[in-house]
């Protein structure tokens, strides 16, 4: 095509052509477009770079237009989507950065390393913006634990998360796990990280200053995950997975701990112009994105990159996904100081290139040009695709297997407490250090959200943040718009129960193949519901991640838009717990709760088909109820607060009893015509169980929020009456025994 072919060793530069492009996952049109942008055919290095940056994983080609509809502005927003992690202001000159990301396909291939490197990756995103990671949360989905594969994935993924988080010294303070058949072949492993930084020290990733030096920090580069981004993250899993295995990445939390401390100290001393993590597509994406954001060019010499394996080709070096590496831009006069500090932290640091004003990404190998592409073409010119959504005529997901028949309410309650989706998560979270950092005020199972203390400030001696991560994929499968709205409301409800007000939200959209009309519809509806709920709460989406093509065998996973939220509370000492604690306290059901059995956990146990829709929640009324609960908790007038979620009111009551080791007597009235099961086990947003002195509970009714005093704390049994008839009478010890079933999966 053009005469300005790059100078290079000719044998390395045989042109891969269209066939090569297709092998790397590009379409014919995309290949033609690359030729147009370059004015010639790309060589292997260039094509490898394009194939990754133009992959779904990096270019968001099927989701970017949808994401643009999400609210991303707000009073407290410091940094929104587009940076490695978004951030909100938490007062006192501090900002909290946070993001959730998926590592689904690597975890399906090798769960321990997949989950571990997932944590490592999200930590880097957070310290890349200059924030010290202070908490991790995990969100997991597996098939039913009756399958050996699911148990293996669960066991190893949990071990991997713990291994990385514990070793690097960041507490894992919360998370969630669901077991549903559609995740059997395609598990989900999402990890969220929260970081803390002085507001003015947050750094962006835009490179600047032609002549500045590009320094690679951290581990040596090996053949890890070569093709990982395009092969593992963007293609459906299926036959031949074994062949993808050699690209497994091994996490080294020790290396990352040093890298983390080193980067934070470099920033604290003001030695860096820009900082960026190396994630998917390695050097290619990090350098290209930094240059693109800064409107500059970049030159990298692959011969200077420290290698772990001999004989690596330039293209391999450019796209390797070796872990525990960062890229930074440094002014030449600061270089020695930077290298010295890195040596002290035993972190390898190598000048591998320079910032230029060419607007081009030039790859050199020992000085010879082996690739030369316009940065704009790489980063911005990937074609975006419109989705072709079509709602399904009927529910496409099969009914879950029936596990419970002819049960009375007491038996149903025990079955629910012991079912894998509701049983105590203790066997998981005891494998995570939830304490390191000395900030953890509310640990797992003590409250609905984790609470982390912030440094004291003049107007507040014990300020804190709260965080939660949520999504019930089965409900999203029933109704992607309502289900996603519910996930956001559930997250905010958890925050309200500890007394926290939401500040911002991050999300990870785990969906199937967006080229299918059904998945396109799920995605469109879910993003619509996400935006609606955020607007109702008045909070921005600060960032997130999209993981598509989550299918294997029988079809797509349940659409799973995982929502992570961060909120603030003025006084950590008043953080609300969920435990019933004082005999004699009244128990109130608060909020516009309209329980329905369709799509509930009980319906799942009974093997009922998924309905094609959920009742529309009155979002404004739910938000108002959250505000009322939050105010009561903050005022310190109630003893406990817990939201009603999976398993309905009876399970919520049982959880409050279990947390406090005390019983309760409750009397319920039902909807006319509705039986006890609906009142006890029906689900829906907007319900809270509060305990405390009766007058404090009654005072809650001053607003428009419905409040009903339904019982009293005390004794050693949970007794529930429905319409005057006793339907549950169980010792708390019996509830505890039922709740412990997950232990068996980890022995």
């Amino acid at each position, binding site marked *: 095509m053009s005469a300005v072919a790059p100078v290079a060793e000719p044998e390395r530069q045989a042109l891969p052509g269209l066939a090569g492009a297709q092998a790397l996952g590009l379409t014919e049109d995309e290949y033609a477009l690359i030729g147009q942008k370059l004015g010639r055919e790309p060589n292997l290095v260039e094509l490898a770079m394009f194939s990754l940056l133009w992959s779904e994983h990096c270019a968001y080609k099927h989701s970017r237009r949808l994401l643009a509809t999400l609210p991303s502005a707000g009073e407290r927003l410091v940094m929104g989507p587009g940076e490695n992690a978004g951030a909100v202001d938490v007062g006192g000159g501090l900002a909290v950065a946070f993001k959730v990301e998926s590592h689904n396909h690597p975890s399906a*291939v*090798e769960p321990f*390393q997949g989950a571990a490197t997932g944590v490592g990756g999200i930590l880097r995103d957070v310290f890349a913006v200059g924030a010290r990671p202070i908490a991790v949360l995990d969100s997991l989905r597996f098939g039913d634990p009756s399958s050996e594969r699911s148990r293996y994935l669960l066991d190893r993924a949990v071990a991997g998360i713990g291994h990385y988080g514990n070793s690097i010294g960041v507490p894992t303070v919360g998370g969630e796990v669901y077991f549903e058949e559609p995740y059997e072949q395609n598990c989900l492993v999402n990890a969220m990280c929260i970081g803390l930084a002085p507001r003015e020290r947050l750094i962006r990733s835009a490179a600047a200053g032609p002549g500045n030096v590009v320094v690679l920090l951290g*581990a040596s580069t*090996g*053949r*890890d995950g070569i093709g990982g981004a395009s092969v593992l993250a963007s293609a459906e899993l299926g036959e031949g997975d074994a062949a993808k*295995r*050699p690209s*497994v*990445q*091994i996490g*080294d939390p*020790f*290396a990352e701990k040093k890298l983390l401390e080193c980067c934070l100290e470099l920033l604290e001393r003001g030695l860096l112009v820009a900082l960026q993590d190396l994630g998917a597509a390695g050097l290619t994406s990090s350098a290209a994105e930094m240059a693109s954001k800064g409107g500059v060019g970049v030159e990298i010499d692959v011969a200077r990159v420290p290698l*772990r*394996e001999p004989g690596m080709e330039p293209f391999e070096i450019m796209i390797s996904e*070796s*872990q525990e590496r960062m890229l930074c831009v440094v002014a030449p006069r600061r270089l020695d100081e930077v290298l010295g500090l890195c040596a002290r932290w*035993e972190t390898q640091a190598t000048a591998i290139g320079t910032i230029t004003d060419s607007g081009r990404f030039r790859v050199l190998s020992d000085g010879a040009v082996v690739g030369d592409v316009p940065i704009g073409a790489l980063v911005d010119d990937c074609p975006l695709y419109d989705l072709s959504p079509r709602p399904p005529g009927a529910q496409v997901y099969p009914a879950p297997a029936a596990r419970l028949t002819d049960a009375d309410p007491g038996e149903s309650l025990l079955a629910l407490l012991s079912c894998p989706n509701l049983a105590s998560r203790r066997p998981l979270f005891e494998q995570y250090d939830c304490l390191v950092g000395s900030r953890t005020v509310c640990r797992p199972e003590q409250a609905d959200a984790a609470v982390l203390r912030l440094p004291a400030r003049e107007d507040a001696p014990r300020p804190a943040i709260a965080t939660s991560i949520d999504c019930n994929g089965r409900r999203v499968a029933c109704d992607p718009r309502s289900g996603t709205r519910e996930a956001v409301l559930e997250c905010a409800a958890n925050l309200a129960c500890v007394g926290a007000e939401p500040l911002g939200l991050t999300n990870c959209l785990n969906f199937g193949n967006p080229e299918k009309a059904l998945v396109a519809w799920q995605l469109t509806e879910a993003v619509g519901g996400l935006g609606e709920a955020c607007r109702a709460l008045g909070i921005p989406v600060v960032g997130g991640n999209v993981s598509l093509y989550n299918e294997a065998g029988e079809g797509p996973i349940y659409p799973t838009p995982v929502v992570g939220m961060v909120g603030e509370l003025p006084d950590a000492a008043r953080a609300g717990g969920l435990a019933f604690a004082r005999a004699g306290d009244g128990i109130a059901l608060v909020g516009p709760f309209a329980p329905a059995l369709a799509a509930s956990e009980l319906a799942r146990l009974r093997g009922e088909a998924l309905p094609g829709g959920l009742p529309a929640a009155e979002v404004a009324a739910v938000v108002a109820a959250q505000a009322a609960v939050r105010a009561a908790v903050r005022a310190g007038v109630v003893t406990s607060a817990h939201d009603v979620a999976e398993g309905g009111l009876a399970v919520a009551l049982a959880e409050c009893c279990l947390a406090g080791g005390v019983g309760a007597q409750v009397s319920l009235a039902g909807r006319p015509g509705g039986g006890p099961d609906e009142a006890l086990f029906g689900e829906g947003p907007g319900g809270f169980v509060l305990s405390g002195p009766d007058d404090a509970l009654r005072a809650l009714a001053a607003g428009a929020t419905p409040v009903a005093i339904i019982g009293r704390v005390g004794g050693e049994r949970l007794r529930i009456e429905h319409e005057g008839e006793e339907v549950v009478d169980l010792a708390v010890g019996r509830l505890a025994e039922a709740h412990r079933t997950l232990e068996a999966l980890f022995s």
Partner: protein
Amino acid sequence: MKARVLVRPKSGILDPQGQAVQRALPALGFTDVHEVRVGRLIELELDDPTRLDEMCERLLTNPLVEDYEVLLEEGARR
């Protein structure tokens, strides 16, 4: 009979333990060690060694990231 299975990280696979040990050696005065890999040793007392490979592949090792080698007690064979 006794069998030993030596399990090591595959070549090309990152071995953080080996690296850490290697970096620690010079300070102890061992300056001539060029490479260290850390793996696992599994010693078994069993009757029938014919299925050892299967055992290694299914349970004892992670074939994605590890290689192994079986050493049998002298005189024994599979």
